């Protein structure tokens, strides 16, 4: 059934304020740690202060005697916790597979070894500090030099890359490094666990309520039906809240033990240690080109650090295989185990560090060729996805570059290093391309049309701050023709129909078909009711003659004003509500027929004041090709936020692991530098809207991650243009430029 709502009034594509905005600005949105219950106790983890070794003894005697303390729990008394069975269909996945306190072995600094539970946070904090743990300590390996330790895996290969490289007229062979980065979400990871003797209600900071439920059920060794996970609002995740971290199982296990609600809010320091990070990568890129700039060979060999027992791979070659045309290509990956907490996805995993390497290398190639870097991209534009040998579903990368170039004024660029100036400052102009996957997760949605004229859409997904509440309301509003403020959105609860994980920038694309189908079912039932209800105006009319417009049912051959409202039909039929369910399937497949990605281009200007070694990003133009943008206001916010994070990645962010103890040393927001407002110039964002209906009827794709992809390379390229110094290891520091 096709909806015939008046498209001119459609909320799709309209800049829309967040429907949850008033709750947030008034402080009434309930975030995880805002939940309090009678009798609730506070738990504070005790963490290992070594990175490699084993626990000899945990002395809790002093801590147990402290005021308000209800118990110190550790391996011997927490109760049984299980591992999550490795599975290939993502039915339950965690990055850190080992449940807390499983053994006495310490594999990273900050691994939880015990937890102090007390009546107040202050008492629990003091008690945690008073727990004495003795260790057998061995020297940890947190070495910054990364080498593939157990061989390399060929990720993609075509032609003979080495032979073509050897024969190439122009060559680039450089190694690029991206550091470990910590997500530093504003809302710290927290868990509030309530156990009633049978069922668990877990308030969590999670980007996936359903997955969190599935993981915790396995760890607790109970049926998923007895676990409910709630996450109504999230103070962002950036990937760091995709999988459950060990504090969550600790909270639930203590609640089980004490039969009291338990709250854990981990500290910023703990978040650096034991709640994921983007691993360090070392990437060798070899490019071969003919003298005209056609790529003849592309090799991308990358290694990332991972934890001792969890293998996390940062897929730096994600975009390399399809982004440019090149007949000979070889991509390999490798892992290096370190005594560091488990890495996890960090906004744009793989593509973001990967594009720093490849888009920097292309810039170096352009310089060698004495060619405009934009022109180099244009001549190497592929006609198909050469990695999978399939056509592109939609690809407008060159359009992104050309639009960006025009908005930025790229044609005025003088390519000579340090030649451009403004107000006595040297200017550097750089560009880089961006790309990100466009797929769907499976999703189920329920829609209710109610007798008071309102509607509800519910699904077990969550809004991680990106605007999912609003997008769902917009889509249902469009489908039913009901005003946005008459729509209730219920998400953030694992007992709802299973919704998508907020990861991979796929929630919007995944939900649209499911909402659409659910709405269609509701409309079908409604029209049927209209013609079957004697009390309604259209009794016995052929349903095929009926349609609806903006909350009104009417005949196709009459104006909407002649019809009757949804509300009246429900009332006439004595229906409280009409329910419709819809689902959409995952688009992941081993053999895709089309290559589905989004694209983008960044243009960055930096100013360089050599006299005081001051570098600033002074102007940014970003163009994004991600199909139809459902909410341009939230969309722009996503890209701007990603660019701010890109400034951080390019210039500031880096987690340092101290070599003797393996501790993340700058584990606070004074020593881990992120951009402040003064570092961020006006940001110009443009969306190219080429809807491709592969994923859904609007042609919408995700935009959460692509804004960060390529940005650091564009900045490093601009820095070279200003200073003549090529930075291949992020972040770009003052000392790198003081040569």
């Amino acid at each position, binding site marked *: 059934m096709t909806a015939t709502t008046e498209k001119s009034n459609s909320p799709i594509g309209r800049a829309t304020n967040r429907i949850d905005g008033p709750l947030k600005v008034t402080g009434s949105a309930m975030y995880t740690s805002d939940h309090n219950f009678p009798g609730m106790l506070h738990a504070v983890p005790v963490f290992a*202060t070594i990175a490699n070794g084993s626990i000899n003894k945990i002395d809790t005697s002093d801590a147990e005697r402290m005021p308000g303390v209800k118990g110190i729990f550790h391996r011997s008394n927490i109760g049984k916790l299980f591992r999550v069975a490795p599975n290939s269909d993502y039915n339950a996945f965690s990055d850190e597979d080992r449940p807390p306190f499983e053994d006495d072995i310490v594999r990273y600094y900050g691994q939880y070894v015990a937890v102090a539970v007390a009546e107040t946070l*202050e008492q629990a*904090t*003091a008690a945690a*500090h008073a727990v004495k743990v003795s260790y057998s300590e061995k020297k940890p390996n947190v070495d910054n030099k990364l080498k593939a330790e157990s061989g390399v895996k060929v990720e993609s290969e075509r032609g003979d890359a080495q032979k073509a490289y050897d024969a190439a007229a122009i060559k680039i062979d450089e190694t690029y490094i991206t550091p470990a980065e910590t997500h530093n979400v504003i809302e710290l990871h927290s868990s509030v666990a309530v156990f009633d003797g049978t069922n668990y209600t877990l308030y969590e900071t999670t980007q996936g309520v359903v997955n969190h439920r599935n993981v915790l059920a396995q760890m607790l060794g109970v049926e998923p039906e007895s676990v409910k996970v709630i996450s109504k609002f999230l103070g962002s995740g950036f990937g760091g809240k995709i999988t459950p971290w060990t504090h969550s199982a600790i909270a639930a296990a203590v609640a089980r033990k004490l039969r009291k609600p338990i709250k854990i809010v981990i500290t910023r320091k703990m978040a650096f240690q034991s709640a994921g990070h983007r691993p360090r990568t070392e990437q060798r890129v070899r490019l071969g080109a003919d003298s005209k700039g056609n790529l003849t060979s592309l090799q991308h060999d990358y290694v990332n650090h991972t934890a001792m027992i969890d293998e996390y791979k940062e897929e730096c070659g994600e975009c390399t295989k399809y982004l440019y045309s090149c007949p000979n290509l070889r991509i390999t990956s490798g892992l290096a185990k370190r005594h560091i907490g488990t890495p996890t996805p960090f906004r744009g995993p793989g593509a973001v560090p990967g594009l720093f390497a490849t888009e920097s290398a292309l810039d170096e190639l352009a310089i060698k060729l004495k060619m405009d870097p934009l022109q180099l991209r244009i001549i190497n534009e592929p006609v198909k996805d050469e990695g999978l040998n399939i056509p592109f579903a939609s690809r407008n990368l060159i359009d992104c570059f050309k639009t960006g170039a025009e908005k930025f004024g790229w044609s005025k660029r003088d390519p000579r290093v340090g030649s451009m100036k403004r107000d006595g400052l040297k200017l550097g102009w750089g560009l880089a391309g961006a790309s990100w996957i466009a797929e769907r997760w499976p999703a189920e949605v329920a829609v209710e049309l109610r007798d008071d004229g309102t509607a509800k859409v519910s699904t077990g997904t969550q809004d991680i701050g990106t605007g999912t509440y609003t997008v769902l309301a917009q889509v249902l509003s469009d489908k039913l023709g009901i005003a946005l403020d008459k729509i209730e959105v219920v998400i953030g609860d694992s007992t709802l129909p299973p919704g998508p994980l907020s990861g991979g920038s796929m929630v919007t694309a995944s939900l649209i078909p499911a909402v659409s189908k659910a709405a269609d079912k509701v409309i079908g039932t409604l029209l049927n009711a209209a013609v079957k209800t004697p009390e309604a105006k259209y009794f016995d009319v052929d349903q095929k003659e009926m349609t609806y417009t903006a909350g009104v049912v009417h005949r196709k051959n009459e104006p909407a004003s002649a019809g009757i409202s949804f509300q009246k039909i429900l009332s006439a039929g004595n229906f409280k509500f009409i329910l419709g369910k819809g689902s959409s399937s995952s688009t992941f497949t081993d053999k895709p027929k089309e290559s589905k990605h989004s694209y983008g281009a960044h243009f960055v200007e930096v100013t360089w004041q050599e*006299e*005081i*070694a*001051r570098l*600033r990003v002074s102007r940014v133009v970003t163009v994004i090709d991600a199909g139809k943008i459902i909410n341009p206001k939230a969309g722009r916010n996503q890209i701007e936020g990603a660019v701010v994070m890109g400034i951080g990645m390019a*210039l*500031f962010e880096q987690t*340092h692991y*101290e*070599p*003797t*103890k393996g*501790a993340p*040393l*700058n584990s606070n927001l*004074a*020593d881990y*530098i992120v*951009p*402040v*407002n*003064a*570092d961020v110039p006006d940001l110009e964002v443009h969306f190219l809207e080429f809807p491709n209906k592969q994923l859904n009827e609007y042609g919408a794709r995700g935009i959460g991650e692509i804004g960060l992809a390529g940005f650091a390379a564009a900045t490093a390229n601009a820095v070279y243009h200003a200073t003549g110094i090529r930075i291949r290891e992020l972040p770009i*520091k*003052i*000392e790198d430029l*003081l040569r």
Partner: protein
Amino acid sequence: MKLFAFTKTAEISEAIKNAADAETAQQGAHSRFVAGGTTLLDLMKLNVETPDKLIDINRLDLSKIETTRDGGLSIGALVRNSDLANHPYVKSHFSVLSEALLAGASAQLRNMATTGGNLLQRTRCVYFRDTTFACNKREPGSGCPAIEGENRTLAILGTSDSCIATNPSDMNVALMALDATIKISGMKGEREVPIAEFYRLPGSTPHIENVLQPGDLITHVVLKAMPAGSKSAYLKLRDRASYEFALASAAVVVQVNSGKITGVQMALGGVGTIPWRAAEAEKVLAGASATEDNFRKAAEAALQAAKPQTQNKFKVELSKRCIVHALKTATSPTA
């Protein structure tokens, strides 16, 4: 954080008496005065400071900024950084102090932080702030992992084999250039200490940072009027544009007559274990022409004794550029 007793007083003598029974007024003191709390509470939460007793001095009558008869200033120890920075007389007559204050911290912190507290601001050395590491400043004799470790932001002047921790304050750099006098009340009465004699180099006792004795309370900071025709500048260099401690900073007060420097006072931040008076640079500049060449020579002299560590060699050059630029700014005709 461990449990502590908390008392309030509105009387200076009572505050002093209350704190006088402590064994030391330095690292690990059992009694601490608390005003803005922006350093102390932070360190208590980290278990770096574990006082048994906090004496709230916010109600003492020490919140006034008053001009002195010679055109100088008497600044109460409880004057908040934001009030001091935005005081009209400070802005017009001691702009270097206002600039330094506003270059520090964030608006929220400046609203809380006090003049007396800022004088005692503790280092940001990560080893000092993490009790799982050794630190000679925190636990005398335990060692200094910073010397071989994470030392990018640490000091290159005034260091010792025991400690290379940087004094992080911006305000203190300006006060050092202004030759401030610190008024202290203690069990033996009142005394005045020139700021140049207030701080102690780490040497083999980095846990002793200044001349304060148990019971000593900083009551005022007194500034003499700057010499007629003085120009000044504060320049702070750091990774990001705001809200970060200095990698290098310079406070300059200078008098130029017919192109010759007739007087100069200069102090450096971000590079010293204490707010660093650049006496060698002042000698080079005294009587010299106000040229960039001479500024560079002065900068070279200021950093002559620098002892960089594994990660902070760049600070030597950065500090020099900072000095040159601050001098250029202060002596430029439009300054």
